[in-house]
């Protein structure tokens, strides 16, 4: 029973990591949005499996909230953002695709090496997901750093927030509901602020390439 439980959790979290890799690989923002939606659904699925196997009633509520907000609300918001400023020319990211994929591979390996001691500490069946959550964290950080379009950076930030949620679920069977809601609310606030931020960049520079911000200096 435990073997199936840990296998499913690992499957879910490696699926989430793969969706993050799609953002690095593909070049169209709509595919990023669908990748984010897939990731949110997988996160909800992992939370639900943990809730079922650990018999924790609250996690089911958290899973439902995840599906509602991250599965539907945020992708819809992202799509409106995309429609408004979506028609941008292809902005070459700082790092080309092959190198960013290899860097992602190295980050994943670094995450595995890093998470090695934690796995020795926890004896929960879901400890297999810890390095995957750390890897997702590093990859989403890399997305934020290496991409120049504001929308992509926003999606990177949201994936970062997903990674933290996954880490919580896999590491300690989910933090108490209050903390969960708190974390999620400030992420939502961050997202709304960024939305306005992107809007203003578009207004002043007529492009959402973050590179242009450097012109504000002189």
């Amino acid at each position, binding site marked *: 029973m435990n*073997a199936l439980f840990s296998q499913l959790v*690992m499957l879910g979290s*490696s699926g989430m990591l793969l969706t993050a890799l799609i953002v690095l690989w593909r070049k169209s923002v709509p595919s990023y949005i669908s990748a984010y939606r897939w990731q949110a659904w997988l996160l909800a699925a992992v939370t639900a499996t943990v809730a079922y196997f650990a018999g924790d009633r609250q996690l089911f509520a958290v899973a439902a909230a995840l599906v509602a907000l991250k599965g539907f609300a945020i992708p819809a918001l992202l799509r409106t953002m995309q429609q408004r400023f979506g028609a941008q020319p292809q902005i070459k990211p700082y790092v080309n695709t092959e190198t960013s*994929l*290899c860097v992602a591979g190295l980050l*994943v*390996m670094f995450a595995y090496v890093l998470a090695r001691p934690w796995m020795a500490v926890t004896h929960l069946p879901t400890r297999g997901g810890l390095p995957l959550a750390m890897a997702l964290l590093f990859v989403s950080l890399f997305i934020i750093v290496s991409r120049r379009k504001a929308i992509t950076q926003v999606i990177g930030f949201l994936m970062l927030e997903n990674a933290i949620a996954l880490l919580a679920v896999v590491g300690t069977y989910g933090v108490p509901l209050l903390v969960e809601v708190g974390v999620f609310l400030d992420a939502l606030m961050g997202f709304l602020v960024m939305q306005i931020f992107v809007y203003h960049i578009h207004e002043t520079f007529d492009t959402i390439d973050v590179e242009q911000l450097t012109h504000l200096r002189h």
Partner: protein
Amino acid sequence: MSRFLALVVQTLVAVALAPALTGFIRWLKARLQGRRGAPPWQPYFEIRKLFGKEAVVSHTASWIFTATPFVVFSTAVVVASLVPLVVVPSGPFVAGDLFAAVYLLLLGTFFLALAGLDTGSPFGGMGASREMTVVALTEPTVALSIVALALNAGSTSFSQIVAHTLAEPSAALGSEHLLAFAALFIVTLAETGRLPVDNPSTHLELTMIHEAMVLEYSGPYLALVEWGAALKLLIFLALAANLFVPWGIALSFSPVALLIGLVSLIVKLAVLSAAVAVLETRVAKLRLFRVPELLSASFVLALLAVMSTFLAR
């Protein structure tokens, strides 16, 4: 002795089945495009016709041009005798493992590229240069997916890997198996010249990779090269099927087990080739310099597969 006989029969079955596989993919793509299309056994007629025709050889071509079809066909046949199709090849007569199979196919591609260059036509050179580029970029992915399988099973020999997966069914659901399968599937598309890397049914010479090298072949030579390419596709699909979903493969040499093995092989090949056909209807051809991005993505998948094998330990 029956073991050796079974291996010979298995190889002959693979050689006979290969054109039908390409025919089935072409037939299914036609149906998906709303056409009636040629029946799945059409390639057999094409091969019969080609054997009846005259072979035209260019003046600038050397002995390599006429020797290459034999090398391409024989490397494909020998690899078919190594790969677990109907029965897992075990015992003294196994000539090699996964690495040997990959390098034998590399021998076939090496000579095909030379034949492309031999006639001095720009298409042949273009095809050879692009084919060697794609093959060079797929090597690390193939090696790492072999490593991911071998680490689990403890060795790179087919019988060991299949036995391990049969013994531990939960492993088949493991992330390393799925990731390695995805990586190997992308490599199959790249290595056998299917869409999105190279369009097998194109007529524009400048977009070809595999076709461009065989533009100069005609008659029986062309039949051998096409048969070898079809056999290579069958080998890759059978590898992807039997290493990751080995249920149904014959472990003993009893006639019943062999029959079940044959039926399960045909079913698995049908499912995989249907997947290839559906994918080819859905996906357009990638620009040549977007192909390395696809191949580096498959390399990262294989790397993750290897990572997760350590995780399980």
